[in-house]
């Protein structure tokens, strides 16, 4: 799945969902099938026949303008909103809205809200992280072990007993993430996790996410930051006005700027730089996804160029 370049437009997603229903080999952890949702007291529906799927094991970035339906999609994924038409499938099965099944769903699918205040409940990071675990009926030894792991992983050990209201925004965001991570969900959804964070806090948060992903969790991040999506994600989904406009690997999505331009989204800086180079230079190379890769590629290209010049000079002599 991850190696599949190009853009799967809406039609192909529908086909893939159909294939999945027919038992064919498409491993999606979460899928939306023609989902419509209209908030009360609003003119336009938030989701208008959304069909999209999130591949298992991928780091997926959900892109789109404000009001494109990203947060609404997340609220549907954890059963906080129920589609007015269509259905949501988790691990291939339609989401059930019975109380018991919803509780089980929320243990499998974790959601980290954009505003951490929305989900921090108890007084200190240590207590708050244990909230969901205790609610799930775990014994205290298991709770302590899981808390210790996520506190360490997200660099929160030093502040585990500090009152929540004294934490910085970055620390609150990491605490909210830790509370969800401790539940060890198979799918982790993050709504604008890096908004308002300074570069250091953002780096710490992304390190934590990479650690979670390495352990086998599928991570989905809604973001406006195209540069971040480009360098971080394995799979991109673009939402616009409540429908999925495109989905695919970043190389494919960002290869042609027309779609993004049409949707009013900016091309990531690295992709723009790469595609502005002459095709004779980029031919045979894959587009770099981060500054390090870009630097290495430039060095190698420059090296090749210098070598060529040296060979030409040698022949002339």
């Amino acid at each position: 799945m991850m190696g599949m370049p190009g853009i799967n437009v809406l039609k192909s997603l529908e086909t893939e969902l159909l294939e999945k229903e027919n038992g064919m080999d498409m491993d999606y952890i979460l899928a939306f099938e023609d989902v419509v949702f209209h908030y009360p007291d609003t003119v336009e529906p938030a989701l208008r026949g959304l069909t999209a799927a999130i591949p298992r094991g991928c780091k997926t970035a959900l892109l789109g303008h404000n009001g494109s339906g990203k947060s609404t999609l997340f609220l549907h994924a954890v059963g906080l909103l129920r589609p007015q038409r269509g259905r949501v499938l988790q691990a291939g099965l339609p989401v059930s809205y019975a109380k018991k099944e919803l509780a089980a769903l929320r243990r499998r699918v974790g959601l980290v809200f954009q505003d951490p205040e929305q989900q921090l409940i108890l007084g200190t990071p240590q207590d708050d992280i244990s909230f969901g675990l205790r609610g799930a009926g775990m014994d205290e030894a298991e709770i302590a072990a899981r808390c210790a792991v996520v506190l360490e992983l997200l660099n929160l050990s030093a502040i585990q007993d500090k009152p929540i209201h004294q934490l910085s925004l970055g620390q609150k965001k990491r605490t909210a993430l830790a509370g969800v991570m401790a539940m060890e969900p198979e799918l982790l959804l993050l709504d604008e996790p890096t908004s308002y964070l300074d570069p250091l806090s953002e780096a710490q948060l992304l390190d934590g996410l990479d650690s979670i992903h390495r352990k086998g969790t599928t991570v989905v991040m809604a973001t406006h930051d195209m540069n971040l999506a480009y360098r971080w994600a394995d799979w991109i989904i673009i939402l616009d006005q409540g429908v999925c406009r495109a989905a695919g690997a970043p190389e494919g999505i960002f290869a042609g700027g027309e779609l993004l331009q049409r949707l009013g989204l900016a091309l990531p800086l690295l992709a723009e730089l790469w595609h502005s180079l002459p095709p004779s230079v980029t031919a045979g190379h894959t587009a770099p996804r981060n500054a390090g890769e870009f630097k290495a590629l430039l060095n190698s290209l420059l090296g090749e160029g210098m070598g060529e010049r040296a060979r030409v000079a040698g022949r002339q002599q």
Partner: protein
Amino acid sequence: MWKSLFAAIMFALAYVLHPALQVLITLWMMLWCLQYAKIPPRAYGQLFGTALLFYGLSLPALLVELGRPAAGEAVLYLRIPGTAQFLYMTPAGGMRAALLLARVSACLACCLFIMLTTPFGELLQVLRRLRMPQIVLELMLVMYRFLFLLDDAAHGLLLARRLRGGHRGFRSRLREAASMAASLFANTMHRYYGLSQGLAARGFTGEILLPPYVKREVPRRFAFEAYAGIVLLAAAQLWMLWT
């Protein structure tokens, strides 16, 4: 638990002991907060002063009397023009206010001691051990969270209004305060909705389960000082009663 018990005993003593000992309790509890717990004096003073404002508001009722004082009874008086009535203050009224101040200060110092030196989570654990109903604990917990959310929202709104220039004049300020209260209400309701969504997303099943009570070792030096202090206060009260 130890600290709560200590505060409870001190609170009880603050009610029953001689006013001079109540003053001592106030000073001793301040020592625990400011010296041992390193609470910033400014913050402590603000909290203490704010709470004492309520006492201040009741002062006129304690000190000032209306009527015709007996000869030599009033130390200060003011005749109400056109009547034979006086507003006056007596030494007894002053004494009543002073006694109340001693008791209020001592009780307040005990409350601040437990509030400022005990993490809220531990306080809830103690209350749970004292068999406080779960619903009360949950309400306390949610209210505690909302105190900070409310403070945060109010601070943000106030700052934004100040930066935008605000209004001048008393009437404009009143209008501004009213509109701020409305914004604050809307903001807080929005946050409340968000928090309820957050609770549901984290698997809230109708009961917030609190962490279990963890017994902590009390430093011997503090335990000794507390026991010694209680004994000395009780002994001083007995001595005052017998002499």
